[in-house]
């Protein structure tokens, strides 16, 4: 077991690359992390910051490049292997066993044993030492499942130090913490650093990273922009580094400005603690972009309008008529369609054919008197949709699982276009699709708007939102904080989404 008081835990990454299908998640990244410091990794969604953190912790294996710990090359096969080298990962989703107690979780897999049995007394003694050294107040014998998230994180940290970790990678550690808990975590991190542990801190919250980190590396599109001392950075300088080139990117041609009547109107929508009094309206033919960070409530807004989540309060009108939406079925009946963030989990039937997927939401229109699916009508409809959306499939009868991501996404669009909806809610419509499909989907979105559909576009990629939207709303902490007319400067939208100090409406 490494002694965590020695200044070890230096990490060096040499020319690390990682690709997913043809997309480069990390491209030739070389980076040094000084031992016993807190090193922040920031970047926009998809910039590669999480991937880099997971490579250090062995959760992802790079395609190329080398990883050194204290000048010794290591090739962790998995997180367990990395832990043996002294690198621990605290993932966004905590990996604890809820029914086991705090102490059992801390020593899970590394229990002191005697004759192959648990050496209970030695475990207790080591637990007492750990707690004393770190000063954590935890109920030793309480099941972890009943603890608050911040306490669960403490358990993860204890687990990491109990295994002798000299490096701890934290991936979005505050994503589910309250502000008080964030503060507690910050103090723990300082304490860990004080005892000689290296922390790699991956976060989308620039404010937090600036507070806690000694040095910050900015990633953009899988490449390292630069690493600087945190003291030299501000939120504005980080945002600029994260989006530098994109800020000046030229605009693509945009559909004609819409001037029709309101098709979708949402008033005072509340959803638990996630959405607070959200109101918006979208005109016929208008594309409204919704920008916000992960966890800002942007997906929840679309899910609430579509009835996937039951809203607590609020009114939804389609074409001026109030609709009570308690389920996706109600929303569909009201003429609303929803392309969810995860096509695999919420959208497609991977084992069914392209034709079956395309028609399943509207089988009522091609049903015979006997209740059978009219196969000629289905064939005709499916073929038309495949043609209209240029879906590359060997046949309408091919299983959706056999198609590429881009074509799967088009099938998901086909499912809704078959119903000719009045409102299209799009959550990350081009996630994980190739460049050509992406362009095709953008054309499709414009085309739908031109034919009078009201469109809400949610995307992590601001460039996409700005290229398509007539109007951009910024959502932060469950409330719409800013509204921009067409073609706002990207940096301004970014700053609003990140809640950079100086932005006029600060969230409660």
């Amino acid at each position, binding site marked *: 077991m490494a002694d965590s008081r020695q200044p070890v835990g230096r990490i060096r990454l040499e020319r690390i690359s990682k690709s997913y299908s043809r997309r480069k998640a990390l491209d030739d990244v070389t980076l040094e992390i000084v031992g016993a410091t807190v090193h922040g990794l920031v970047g926009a969604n998809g910039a590669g910051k999480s991937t880099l953190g997971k490579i250090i912790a062995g959760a992802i294996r790079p395609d190329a490049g080398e990883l050194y710990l204290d000048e010794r090359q290591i090739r962790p096969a998995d997180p367990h292997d990395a832990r043996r080298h002294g690198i621990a990962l605290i993932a966004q989703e905590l990996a604890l066993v809820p029914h086991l107690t705090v102490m059992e979780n801390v020593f899970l897999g590394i229990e002191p044993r005697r004759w192959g049995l648990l050496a209970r007394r030695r475990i207790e003694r080591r637990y007492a030492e750990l707690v004393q050294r770190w000063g954590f107040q935890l109920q030793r014998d309480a099941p972890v499942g009943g603890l608050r998230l911040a306490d669960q994180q403490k358990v993860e940290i204890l687990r990491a130090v109990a295994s002798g970790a000299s490096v701890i990678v934290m991936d979005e550690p505050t994503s589910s913490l309250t502000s008080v808990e964030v503060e507690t975590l910050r103090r723990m991190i300082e304490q860990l650093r004080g005892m000689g542990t290296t922390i790699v801190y991956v976060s989308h919250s620039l404010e937090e990273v600036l507070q806690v980190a000694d040095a910050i590396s900015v990633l953009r599109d899988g490449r390292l922009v630069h690493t600087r001392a945190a003291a030299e950075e501000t939120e504005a300088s980080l945002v600029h580094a994260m989006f530098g080139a994109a800020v000046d990117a030229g605009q693509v041609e945009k559909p004609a400005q819409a001037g029709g009547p309101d098709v979708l109107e949402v008033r005072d929508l509340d959803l638990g603690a996630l959405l607070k009094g959200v109101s918006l309206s979208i005109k016929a033919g208008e594309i409204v972009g919704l920008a916000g960070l992960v966890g800002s409530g942007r997906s929840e807004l679309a899910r609430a309008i579509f009835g996937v989540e039951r809203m607590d309060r609020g009114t939804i009108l389609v074409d001026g008529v109030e609709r009570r939406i308690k389920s996706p079925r109600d929303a569909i009946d009201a003429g609303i369609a929803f392309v969810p963030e995860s096509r695999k989990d919420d959208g497609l039937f991977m084992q069914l054919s392209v034709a079956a997927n395309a028609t399943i939401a509207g089988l009522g229109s091609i049903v015979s008197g006997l209740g059978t699916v009219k196969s000629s009508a289905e064939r005709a409809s499916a073929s038309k949709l495949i043609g209209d959306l240029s879906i590359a499939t060997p046949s*309408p009868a091919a299983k959706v699982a056999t198609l590429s991501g881009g074509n799967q996404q088009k099938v998901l669009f086909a499912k809704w276009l078959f119903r000719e909806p009045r409102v299209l809610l799009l959550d990350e419509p081009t996630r994980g699709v190739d460049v050509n499909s992406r362009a095709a989907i953008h054309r499709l979105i414009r085309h739908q708007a031109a034919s009078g559909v009201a469109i809400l576009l949610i995307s992590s990629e601001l460039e996409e939102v700005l290229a398509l939207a007539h109007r951009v709303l910024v959502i932060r902490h469950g409330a719409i904080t800013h509204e921009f007319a067409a073609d706002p400067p990207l940096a301004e939208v970014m700053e609003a989404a990140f809640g950079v100090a100086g932005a006029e409406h600060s969230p409660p």
Partner: protein
Amino acid sequence: MTEGADPPVSVEESAPADSGISVPWHRRRIRAEHVRDYGILVVFASLFVALSVGSSGFLTTNNLLNILYENAPLGILACGVTLVIVAGNFDLSLGAMFALTEVCATEAAIHWGAGFGLVVPLLAGAVLGLINGLLVTKLRINAFLATLATSLAFGGAATAISGGLLLQVTSSTFLALGRDSIGQVQYSVIVFVVLAVLLQFVLGRTVFGRYCYGVGGNREAARQSGLRVDRIAIATFMIAGVTAGIAGLIDASTTGSGSSTAGANYALTAIAAVALGGTSIFGGAGSVWRTVVGVLLLALITNGFDLLGVEAFYQDIVKGALIVLAVSVGSLVERR
């Protein structure tokens, strides 16, 4: 992803309603997927040919009809539960529903008349299926546990109603279903064939059938596509209940009696037949004709081994091995 096959396809050149094959055979080499999807047919055909050659008593109209006759109740149950499984659920209470509906049929026939004896078990089956369906959808109890519990309760109810006695029916109208025939073909065989064709049609061709695949394949996507996922699941449980009622009725009519201990192994045998046929036990893929093949394959093994004079316990070993083989081929192909 799960193993199994058969998305409903009613487009282009695919001939059978649920073959899942989009390109004609001859243009393709045989691939692992084909072994998974159609291997069971090859096994069935091989066994059929082998038995025809190896035993003079096998390939006779009498013997073949007898196989169908003996397996009609099991086959009907298995066809019904196929819909439950395709829709992503499970029903372990088949055997208990079979016993309870059988007891209901005999009680109704004895006390109210043969006509009631024919109708009551179907209604009873529908109600029992409804109970299963409500437990699974409204109370959100895992289907495995819910039907395990109702299996106990239904079995207990059967004993309570029958008083643990063997109930005898003498009405010739009631007994006709199980014992009479048109030409050489018994009524119960006709009922089995008609039900199998009907359920294959429902699953393969109707909107409801398509929804079963949808709910079983991806419940959340089904909900977000506007499907009434609960109602669809309940309907499949009710179909399984009604088929259990029909099977119980046929058994009561065949034996002329009703017993609360009938059909003890039916639930597991029926589910084994479904899996053997290649229907995914995780839902979303499969078909009724596959279940029929699975039932008949198990029946052929029994019949053939009997004809060849092989001990019964070898049959069970072979059946078990075959199920393992069928299911593992499926999951190996999926995992590649």
